[in-house]
Structures are given as C-alpha cells and as structure tokens.
C-alpha cells in the first residue's frame, strides 16, 4: 500500500513539475465541449420538465438538486418550477478562439497557464482519473465567457434580507463594469489592448448610487495576467472624497456588509493558485437557466428607460428567484484553500458544462458544516434586453447568497448588458474614480 501511495505521489509530483499540454484538440472535442446537448438533452428518471419540485416530491429529485437546494426544498423554503432544457451556446468567436489556441495551452509547475491566448483553455472532457482535471476546469472557469469581453450591469440591486422575517434591511444600488484587457474575442481590439504595461487581465469597476451613506463609493479592481500576483484594488469613498488603496489580501472579508465575500464574486474571485482544485465528477442538475422575458418579473426597477424589470423573488425570506430551473450537465469542482487560516473549509462549485460558468456554489465552513449557498441565475441573451441578442453570453440575471448559519441572505438583481460602449480602459483607472466622484 505504501509503495502504491509512493508511486501515486511521484506521479502527481511529476505531473506538476512537468508542463502539461492540452495536446491535440479535435473538432469533436470542441463540439462536445460547447454543444453538449447536440445529441439530446439530459433526462432523469421520473423527471418531466414542468414538474414543480416541492417538499412533497423532493426525495424523488434529490439526485438532480445540489445539496443546499435539496435542503431548502425539503425544509419548505422554496418550490422549484422546472422547464425544458435549452441550449445556451457561447459566442462563435469564443469557440473559434478555442479551436485556434487550445492545443497550445499548458499547465506549468506553478499551476498557471502557459500559451493561453483566448477561448476555453481545456475543452477536452474532464477525466476523473486525471489528477489535474480540477485545475483545468478552474482555468476554464477563470477564462470563461461569463461576462464576455465586456459587460455593464446597471441597475444592479443588492438587497439584505432577513430569512426568518423577510424584512428588507438595506438595499445597495450599484453600477458595475467588467472588461478584459486581454484574451478578447468579440470587441476590438482583439485579442488585447496594446498599452497595458502591467499586464492587467481584467478590470472591474463599480459605483454605488444608493443609499446616501455609501453613494459615490467606487471600487476598482485590477486583476493581472500573472495569477500569482494579488489583485490591486482602490476604493473611492464618497464621504471622504478620496481614493483609498485597498488591502486586497483579505478577500474573505464581507463586501460592504453583504453576505458575499470579495472572494465569492462570480463564484470564485481569488487567485486560482490560492486553492487546491479537484474534479468531483459530472452530474446533471436542475439549474436556474431561463429566458428572462418569459419569467414572472418584478415591478422594479420602475424607471428603467428600456422598460426592463428584474425577475421576481419568492420563497423563504424572498431570497429565491421565481424562475424556472432546467436540467443541465455540470462538472463538480471542489476547491480547498491552501491557507489553513481560511474561514472556508471548501467550495463546491457546480460548473455548467456548456458555458463554464458557475451555476451554483456551496460553501462549507472549516468544521464541514454548510455555510452558504450561492446560485447564479443565467438568462439566455436572445430572450433578455434586445442589446444582448446574439452576444453568446449566458447572462448573470439573479443571484442570492444565503448564509444558512446567519439566517440571512443578500439577493442580487441584475440588468446585464454585453457591450463595450462604456467599457474602455479609461473607465478602469484610478483617475476615473476621482473623475466620477462627486
């Protein structure tokens, strides 16, 4: 046994010290990766789209619910409406970039990528016997097409809710912008901006519009190509009228009092190399993927110039999206922090196979107890705001972070627009914080 373990250990070490290339990527691999439903949609015994999963029948569908959602339905917190699975194809530009570049991508000894240009880094179906499968999946997520090359979310409401009472405690209203400096496939310039001396990979900019005590607070994050380099971040504090450098090391801190850690943004917002990543297998799960315009919508935001409305909330504490779920192929990605002082024991991310976006995240504390659930509802771009049509991005449309230990949730309601109209490098500068600061 010891001998076996030794061999296994040597094998793992050799894998890590030897660059692992993706190898040849066939068109079948591309098709399988980006069109997993080409030969049919998933099914599950006894499941028919349209069924409502509730306290009465939840045991029947336990295997197609993630553990947290199963618990919530079982406890009567929410009922799940279902709908037929639909295709969410990504942008052809992203797929083509994968065809063109995936073969040249390799994992180096640091666990970061060499040779990555654009597209999905590792489109080949993950193999449970591959010790680096988790590492490859997390890179597919990291360089995914979650926001396209460029995305604006406005309005973007973060609502603090007491699960027990349903009381709305506070609403933060934001405007968020995301822009990739490199690995671009849709908006010019592709694949990158040339004037980028510090090799920033991604810029994130947000500004709070309400409430008054946080109004004009702005956040700027620079994420670098070098994954081992910590993000740089600045905060413009409206009540101080100045830019303040943020200590970005503590990304497990709650963001502006929400239930989200900074590390939670988009599912995982830290350095890939801060965690050990493990592939936990492939499952079909009921996920909140839907056509936004077909959902029951809220009355807010009441003054949107396009008449856009958020999806409605329901369930315990009004924490859950009142949308349809569909059965989709997912990869289970398990992340364990390398830092032994990290408050999280592990993250279990259910990656949607077609889009490589995080469909749901379950966070466990260091004792192994369920701590948080964070699903992100995805809207099809062709059934959303007309500006998104044809963008090939599964749009962030609703999210909630439920802290089951605190009986509290923060709901996130989005209007996502895939556009580069506002998102140019000048927006992602420290100077812009001062310019926009009032």
């Amino acid at each position: 046994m010891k001998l076996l373990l030794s061999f296994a250990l040597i094998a793992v070490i050799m894998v890590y010290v030897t660059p692992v290339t993706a190898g040849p990527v066939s068109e079948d691999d591309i098709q399988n990766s980006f069109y997993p439903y080409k030969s049919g949609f998933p099914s599950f015994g006894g499941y028919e789209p349209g069924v409502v999963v509730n306290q009465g029948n939840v045991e029947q569908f336990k295997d197609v619910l993630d553990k947290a959602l199963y618990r919530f339905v079982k406890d009567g917190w929410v009922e799940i409406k279902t709908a037929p699975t639909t295709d969410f194809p990504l942008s052809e530009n992203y797929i083509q970039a994968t065809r063109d570049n995936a073969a040249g991508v390799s994992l180096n000894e640091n666990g970061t990528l060499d040779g990555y240009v654009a597209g999905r880094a590792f489109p080949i179906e993950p193999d449970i016997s591959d010790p680096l499968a988790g590492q490859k999946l997390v890179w597919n997520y990291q360089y995914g097409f979650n926001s396209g090359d460029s995305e604006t979310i406005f309005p973007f409401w973060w609502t603090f809710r007491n699960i027990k009472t349903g009381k709305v405690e506070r609403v933060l209203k934001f405007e968020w912008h995301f822009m990739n400096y490199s690995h671009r496939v849709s908006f010019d310039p592709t694949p990158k901006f040339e004037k980028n001396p510090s090799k920033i990979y991604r810029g994130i900019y947000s500004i709070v519009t309400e409430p008054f005590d946080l109004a004009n607070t702005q956040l700027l994050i620079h994420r670098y190509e070098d994954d081992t380099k910590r993000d740089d971040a600045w905060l413009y504090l409206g009540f101080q009228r100045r830019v303040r450098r943020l200590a970005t090391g503590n990304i497990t801190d709650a963001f502006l009092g929400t239930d989200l850690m900074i590390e939670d943004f988009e599912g995982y917002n830290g350095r890939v190399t801060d965690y050990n990543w493990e592939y936990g297998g492939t499952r079909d799960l009921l996920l909140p993927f839907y056509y936004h315009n077909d959902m029951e919508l809220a009355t807010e935001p009441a003054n949107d110039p396009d008449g856009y409305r958020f999806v409605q909330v329901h369930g315990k504490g009004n924490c859950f999206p009142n949308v349809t779920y569909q059965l989709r192929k997912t990869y289970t990605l398990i992340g364990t922090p390398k830092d032994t002082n990290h408050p999280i024991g592990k993250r279990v991310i259910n990656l949607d196979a077609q889009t490589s976006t995080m469909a749901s995240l379950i966070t466990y504390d260091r004792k192994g107890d369920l701590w948080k659930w964070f699903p992100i509802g995805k809207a099809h771009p062709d059934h959303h705001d007309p500006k998104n049509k044809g963008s090939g991005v599964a749009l962030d449309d609703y999210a909630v972070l439920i802290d089951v230990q605190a009986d509290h949730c923060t709901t996130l309601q989005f209007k996502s627009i895939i556009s580069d109209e506002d998102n140019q490098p000048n927006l992602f500068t420290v100077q812009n914080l001062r310019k926009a600061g009032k």
Partner: protein
Amino acid sequence: MFLNISRPIRWQVAAPVVSLAALASMPMVVVAGTSNDGVLETRGFVENATFYRDDVGLSKARNTVQYEFSKHLNTSGRFVDVSISGTIRGSYDAVYDLNDDQFGANSGRPVSFRAPGNPAFFDTLVKSSGGPGAPFVPTTNPVFAGTFGPAAAGADGAIPLPGVPMGTINSPNNPNIGLELVGDDAHDFEKGGVMLAYPTRPCNIDSRGCLDDYLDFDESELKYPEFNDKADVIRELYLDATLPSDGGREIGFRVGRQQVVWGRTDLFRVLDVINPVDFSRHNIFDELEDIRYPMGMLNAEYRMGATERFDDLNLQFLWKFEEFRPHNLGQGGQPYSILGAGNFFRAMGNCWENGCTVGNFPATGLAVDFPKHSLGIRDVDIPNDRDEFGVRLEGLYKGVGFSLNAARYYSQLPSLRGGVEADNPFTPATESRFFPYNLAFDIAFPTVYLLGGSADLYSEKIKSAFRLELAYTTGEEFPNTLEERLFSESDVIRWVVGWDRPTFIPFINKKRAVLVSAQLFGQHLLDHELQNVNPQGLPAVGSVGMPDWKNNYIATLLLQANFKNDRLTPQLLTAYDFKADSGAFAPSISWKPSNNWVFNLGLNLKFGDGAKAFDDNRSANPFPPFTCAPPVVAAAPAACGSAFGSLGVGGFEPIGRFRAGPFGNAINEDEIQFTVRYQF
C-alpha cells in the same frame, strides 16, 4: 475624566426632538433618486447632531439639511460627459439658543484678576518713570483687581499705564461683561501665565475684538453658518465637461465651487492643502468632506490613461478664482475654537481697539491696563489677488499609485506679524511707530510654495496597504520671540505614513474583518530657532524662539468593526500628539436600521498634559526703559535704554497653545455625542 451629566438637561434632551420635529414639518419639495430619463440624480439627508460637554452642557445642537444633485446635459459640440452638479447645505445650530449663557447672546461674565502686587509695583513704576504721580491708589483687594470695571468706579485696581486716557481703560464700549479668560477652558493660571480676557458674544451683540472680515460672525452666522455673504449654502456647484482626444486621451474640466482632495490621509492634512477647512464645526474630528470649504476653481486634467510605461497617467492644473479664504478656526465664544486661537485673536483685537487689562503682567501677581493701540491685533490682511495655482502629476506604475504635487497658495493659517505702528503705553503721546518686540500685530496669510508627492501601495506579505505623503513648503510663518517682529519664516517638511489592514480578530467577529488603520504624521521646521539667550545675548530664564516644535509627531489609530451586515458599526478612534503629550479617544457606535436612518452615539474624550507653557514675551523690553525687566535693571542698567527681546519668562498664554496642539488646548472638551440622520 468622567462626564458630568448631572446638570439639568431638560432642554438639552429636548433639543434633538424639537429639531427633528421642526425638520420633519418642513415641506419636502425635493425628491431623491434618479429621474426616469436617467439624467438627473438627487439625494440628501436631514440630520440632528447633539453634543453635550462636560461642565458646559450643550455644545452642539446642529440641524442640517443637505441636498445633492447631478444633472447630465445633452451637448452637440466636441464636449462629452457634460454635467452640472451641486450640493446645497443649510444648518441651524440651536446651541446658541438653548445654551446661550455658554455660547451666545448671554455668554461670558465679568472677569477679575488676582493682583496683590499692584500697589508696590505701582509706586515703583511711577517713581522710576518720573511720571506725573499716581492718579489713584490701586486696590489692595487681592481677589478683585480686575479691569473693565464700571466707569463710575474709576480705579479698578489694575495699574493704569500713563498712556491710558483718564487713567483707566473703562469706557462704555468696553464694559466688564460677556468676557472669559483666554485659555481658562484649558488650564488654570497657577503657573503665572499671562491673563487676557476675550469677549464671547456674537459680533452683532458685542463687536469687541471682532476683526474685519475674519472671525467676525454675528449671531445669525453662528446659528446658520451656511447663510452668509460667502453663500456657503451653495456648498458646491460645478460644471463637468470632457474633451476627447486621440488614443483614448481626454481633457477634463471641472469649473465652479468644488473640493479638490490631494491627500490620502484622515484627520490631518499634508498635501490636502487646496481647500480651507472649517475647524469651528468640530475641531479636527468631522470628516474633511464635511468641513472643507469648497472653492471656486478651474480644475483641468489631461488624462492620458495607459501609456507605454504607466498604467495610468494624469496631469492636473488648478486655478482658484474665488477670493482667498482662510481656515475657520472658530471665533472667540464658539464651542470649538481650535488651539483656542479664535479666543486669543479676539482678546488681542479688543486690546488694540479698546485697550485691555493684562493679568500676571509684567510679572505674576500684577495686572496692568494697556491703552488702545499699544498692543493687540490691529488688522487682517486677506489676500485678494486670486493667484493660487496647483499642478499635480499622478499615475499608476507597476501597481504603485503616485503623485507629484506643486502649489502656490496662501497659507490658510494666519500668521501674526508684529512690527505694526503702535503707541507707547507709558507715554501720553501718540507715537504710532514700530516698537521692536512689541506684541502688536497684523494678521497675514503669507504666500506658500509647496512641492510634494504621495504614493500608495500594497504589500501582500503583510496584507497591508500603505499610504505615503511628503510635502516641502517654503514661506510659512511661525511665532518667534527672537525676532523684532515676533515671527519668522521656516521651510517645513511634513510627511505621513498610513497603514491599513483589514484583520480578522475572531473574538470580535469571525466573519468580518476589523479595519485597522494607523497613521504617523511628522512635521519638521527646518529653520527652527530656540535658544536660552535672548537675541541681544542676555541670558534667558527659559527657552526663547519658536513655540512650534522643531520635530513633532502625531499618531492616529482607527479600529472599526462591523456586525449585522455592516449595519452595526462600533469604532474606536484615537490620536496622540507626542510632543504635546495629549491625545483624543473617541469610541462610537453607528446603527443603520434601514437605508434611511443612521444613528450614531459616541464619546470624544481628551487625555494628556493639556496646556503647555512657553515664553510669553513678558520679559522683553519693547518700550525702553519702562519695560526693562528688574534683573536687567539690577545687573546691566545700560541695556534698559534699548529694546531687547524676551528673556524667556513664560506661561501657558498666549503662545503656549502652539505647543499644546489641537488636543492639549481642547483638554477639557470631553463630550458625549449623538447624531441621527434621515437620508433619502
């Protein structure tokens, strides 16, 4: 240092209730939010801040309405992102009505000085000066030997110098009412420091010591500080416009009344010199955003964005076109008078204008009446050339934010320039000439040139962000008893290192980091002068020269925790002035039950040595031979024929305040503070 709240507090408790009720009854003609077309954003708040000071009672009952707006304008020309923004603020501080015997129309009292030595000294003086003889026999009452006594009483016990008309300074314009002793709120006079009285009442009620256009607020300006001739009710109003250029570059303009923040620090300022500050609102403790005076400026920026070398680069040019405005240090009689400067200025203004009695002068146990125009503050010279400029280059290089700053501006702190033409109080004649070392001043705001820079960076190793600022100035002026005009210039280096680290402290909160933010400020006067002989080489009994410290350091520490999704926020702010050996300790807790309501309860406590003594110029000889110090008379009588500088006899007043700093001078201003805000 416990707060005494046993005094009757009926009205004090009622103040916030009454105030909020009044505010709530106001018609809310404004709305908050974003217009349907998205071009107009508005927001605001109403607030009551009620502070209660140990042994004083209510020190603030301020009710504020603030309304902010920003409107995007459609343009068809070359400019983009054109908008107009503004902040309207009005407030009413009811403390001047609710506690008017401390801070208002009925404040102050008659003052008196212990002067048991007057009779003997009087005889000596009269004989040595060959004067006409005693106009009266000074009282031997050691308790009341005061001044400003009823005119009918004639002699009141202070020694009437020969230059005093009618032998006393009594006049209907200078009665002994509505007065306090300078520094009496910070120390007693057991060390024999100079005692001066200052009028406390608003300038429309008592104009004594009110300097023209500087710290001369009338009652309505104190109660309603934004409704003044500067139109501070229009706190900010500016136009933004951007002129796009090639390669994503742009030139941005912001024109109008605005705040420009150069610094990266809290509480104290190093590079943040563009806007003057209203310290009368709450000493240094309010957010700078709320106490900067926005100024009319042209703010032009050439935004280069990313270049081959820099991730961001920006060149800023500033021109202040609004008339120069100094800091508001708080006038005599206001609840907050930083360094006690406003009290001192008002006392000196009255001395010049009406004459005054100075206690413990020229030695402990004496009190002397000085006639008008012999000492004091004569005038205020406020620059009006509108020639303040600033340039800043800032950018981002390899993740390090930096700036290089240069400015030409007028000092927002006043300089007391001696050397004004005065009358010799020991002679009946009107000389109106310069007497070296005489305490007769004009207030000036000298031209200052600043060069500096700043940086911020992050260290992953210790998970900390650092803020650095460095400024070098020339042209600043400081009191200096070695100089004939009692001031001199010094180049100054100021710096600050700030350290911010969100830190998980499990026993406080396992899920939310505590913000630990520390700052260390340094100030170095490069041309500092301090010695133990006077300028003429006569040995001094104490230090003579500049009261400001040659090298001083102030440290601040902020600990801020958050609970209940950041709606419950306790924090501890503390600051310590190393040379002054004084500091402040300000715990508070904030509660936000909803988007609209914010409650804050806090304490503001001071600790340390309090007042500091320094050479008070009593031992100078500005009016030879009359003011020649007895030791010199005895040891070197020939020296008495010429003016000479101070021999270092000192006390808390008048310029020890520059050593005690903002905490030492406020040592007795312990307060409990409650603020409630409704924001919309």
